[in-house]
């Protein structure tokens, strides 16, 4: 044991003595590891993002959207889900604690005084805030009375708020949409972008009844509805049930496609993985190439070094170093350098991903995992690419080595 420590000290001495070799090996390993660090952080960031998205979407909820891509393609209606469907679903799925219809009206302009802004009007029930886990941060939420009484009231999203009111407090003020005056009663928290890149903060949320009757004059059909279950673990099962339930209500024959689409948290994750997957693969490839490059730099510089140090190796062998001792020393030198390179690379990775997040929307998330991955990889390079030069050093014949 003491013997190994003494040989390690020799390795450290050599690492410090052969500065040029140490420097170039260290830099190339550091570059590779920094790439890997960014990749691991990005991967983790993507998963973290997916997790947050699902949390916001509601891990216990399904979203049923009227119409489907297949149906639209063959020219079928997109108005397929009725208020009655929603009500029937509420009755049928007893383990659902919330069922909320939603009516979306795109491309309307909201105005306040001289300010105008494009908005998306969402008609919903009093359950909107809880259905979407989207808190009202000022004023009050929509109430059941607002829905029953077709009240002209609304909740305002952050972007819309900024554009129309600036720093003014909107609560109690009136906004004009499609010749209807709507009183703002509450402000929604900032939500950002949806996974598909849609701005969620330009919305105006109103009672679904008001939207249907007063804004678009619609009595039956809604855009979508949302349903949340008490037992999240059975969500997959409910998704199937819902499919069958709606197909039956819409009297679809077996060969007809669904005239609706069901979105589940799983689908969101799949979508995100597809979105960030290619980025991660690209970065991963770049990182692996960097690492292999670093490995070859190390192997070559070490081979040169073994040649240059032939005499030293011969001296060590002649005074009693075993082959294994020489192997161990050279491997230790390689691993010491790559470990230092790993640490430097990790720090470089930290800095460069901070820069990346400044330049672009980039899902970066650092945890101990990226540090551990970086360290293990740098050891792997040290051992993997240091082995050949080290064993060449160990197998030098002492008599030839001392002769030089």
């Amino acid at each position, binding site marked *: 044991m*003491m*013997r190994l420590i*003494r*040989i390690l000290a*020799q390795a450290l*001495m*050599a690492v410090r*003595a*052969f500065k040029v070799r140490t420097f170039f090996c260290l830099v190339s390993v550091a570059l590779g590891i920094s790439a890997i660090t960014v990749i691991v952080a990005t991967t983790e960031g993507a998963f973290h993002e997916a997790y947050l998205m699902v949390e916001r979407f509601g891990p216990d909820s399904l979203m049923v959207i009227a119409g489907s891509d297949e149906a639209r393609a063959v020219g079928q209606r997109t108005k397929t889900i009725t208020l009655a469907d929603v009500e029937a679903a509420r009755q049928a799925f007893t383990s659902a604690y919330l069922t909320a219809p939603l009516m979306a009206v795109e491309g309307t302009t909201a105005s306040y005084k001289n300010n105008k802004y494009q908005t998306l009007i969402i008609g919903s029930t009093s359950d909107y805030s809880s259905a979407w886990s989207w808190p009202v941060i000022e004023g009050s939420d929509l109430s059941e009375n607002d829905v029953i009484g077709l009240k002209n009231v609304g909740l305002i999203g952050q972007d819309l708020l900024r554009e129309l009111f600036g720093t003014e407090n909107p609560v109690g003020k009136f906004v004009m949409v499609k010749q209807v005056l709507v009183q703002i009663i509450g402000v929604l928290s900032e939500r950002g972008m949806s996974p598909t890149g849609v701005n969620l903060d330009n919305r105006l949320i109103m009672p679904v009844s008001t939207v249907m009757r007063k804004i678009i004059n619609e009595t039956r059909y809604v855009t979508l509805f949302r349903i949340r279950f008490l037992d999240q673990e059975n969500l997959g099962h409910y998704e199937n049930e819902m499919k069958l339930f709606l197909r039956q209500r819409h009297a679809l024959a077996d060969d007809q496609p669904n005239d609706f689409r069901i979105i589940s948290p799983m689908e969101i994750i799949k979508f995100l993985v597809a979105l960030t997957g290619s980025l991660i693969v690209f970065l991963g490839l770049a990182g692996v190439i960097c690492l292999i490059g670093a490995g070859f730099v190390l192997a070559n510089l070490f081979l040169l070094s073994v040649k240059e140090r032939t*005499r*030293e190796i*011969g*001296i*060590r*062998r*002649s*005074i*009693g*170093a*075993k*082959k*294994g*001792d020489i192997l161990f020393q050279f491997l230790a030198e390689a691993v010491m350098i790559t470990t230092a390179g790993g640490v430097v690379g990790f720090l470089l990775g930290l800095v460069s991903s901070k820069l990346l997040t400044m330049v672009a929307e980039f899902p970066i998330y650092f945890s101990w995992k990226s540090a551990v991955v970086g360290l293990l990889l740098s050891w792997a390079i040290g051992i993997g690419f240091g082995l050949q030069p080290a064993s060449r050093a160990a197998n030098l*014949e*002492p*008599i030839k080595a*001392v002769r030089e």
Partner: protein
Amino acid sequence: MDEITQPMVLMDQVTKSFRIADQDVAILKGIDLNVRRGEFVAVMGPSGSGKTTLMNLIGCLDVPTDGRYVLAGRDVTKLTDDELSVIRNEHIGFVFQNFCLIPYATVYENVLLPSLYTMKSKNDAAGRAVDLLRMVGLEHRTRSKPALLSGGEQQRAGIARALINSPELLLADEPTGQLDSRTAEDIMKLFVRMNADHKTVIIITHDPNIAGYASRIVRIKDGLMET
């Protein structure tokens, strides 16, 4: 035979050939050598006669092609590479013509070197290194790198290193070959002192004056001992 009367080096018809240009060339052609404990032997012979080759065999840096070699009662012809390393480490001290110090280590670290590889757990090498450096007169140069030392000083460091593990056999291949005669004399006095300290010493030299320090001279020519 007991420990004392048993020879230090006993070679019996030892041969050594090298493969040179696809041919086995016999360099040593049947060496019989008997060096008793406590002897001071000088090996002389013309250049290319095989002196260094013989020394490498005695020092277990290489193994004979044929014949028997018993070192301190132990047949070393059948030992593994690792076992030979242990013997070199514990029983033999080498002094080289070109000093063979590690350039990036200090004199002190160079002297300690053999003690790093020793398997013995009890190991007061640090203290012994200081004593040895004082003995060879290098106590003021311990922190220097070898390149800053004169040839004589480097060789004295080499001798201190050879002695650090207290070997019973001291081998030196032309230890004064690169030194002037005054310095060579100082170095030889160290060997004489070691020999007086009951160490067996074998040196190779071309110089009859150097050989004069030995108690016995053996001559080698064309791979055979001259009688």
